[in-house]
């Protein structure tokens, strides 16, 4: 069973509003990922961290999202100005490092109305 904790499970925001979701990775896992899963079940990689440092992020994340993984605090992903197309399941995952298994949380279901 995954020990990645995501909150909230559900989030409803109006267009233009900020939307913030949090993730507590599995204890001892230094690598954290955020993925977006759309209604067609397609996964889109958004960003990953090793400890507090960004390893890689896509263009959309850099321009429209704010993400961080501070030490001793939950990781967070925030959409600065929500759009209808952002409605999706946002999945946080963690791993112990290179070549180790990746475990996902239950996700935050964002609906932008």
């Amino acid at each position: 069973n995954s020990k990645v904790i995501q909150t909230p499970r559900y989030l409803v925001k109006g267009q233009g509003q900020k939307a913030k979701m949090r993730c507590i990775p599995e204890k001892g896992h230094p690598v954290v990922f955020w993925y977006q899963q759309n209604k067609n079940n397609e996964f889109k990689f958004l960003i990953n961290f090793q400890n507090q440092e960004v390893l890689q992020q896509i263009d959309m994340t850099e321009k429209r999202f704010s993400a961080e993984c501070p030490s001793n605090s939950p990781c967070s992903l925030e959409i600065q100005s929500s759009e209808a197309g952002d409605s999706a399941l946002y999945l946080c995952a963690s791993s112990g490092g290179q070549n180790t298994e990746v475990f996902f949380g239950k996700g935050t279901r964002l609906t932008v109305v």
Partner: protein
Amino acid sequence: QQQVRQSSQSLTVWEGETAILNCSYENSAFDYFPWYQQFPGEGPALLIAIRSVSDKKEDGRFTIFFNKREKNLSLHIKDSQPGDSATYFCAASANGGNNKLTFGQGTVLSVIP
């Protein structure tokens, strides 16, 4: 360009049969292939995984067969149960890729009692 491809969007089997889910990939650098199981409203759960140095991995009723030369793999679920009804995702990552996963489109498995 779909780097990881699952050949069937959906598959229906009777209880007790073996379900076979197929996956292929394009990137020769991929060397780690996990399968995830996802129930509606939940995050993906790691089911079983294989590395490219192996051609078979077995865990209980679940077996992965891997063909590096043909760049394909399959997940066999023996003695399928109604509780196995879920969406199954084939994924892949490359050594040195920070465990970043590339997912297939998913196969919805229905097991009829």
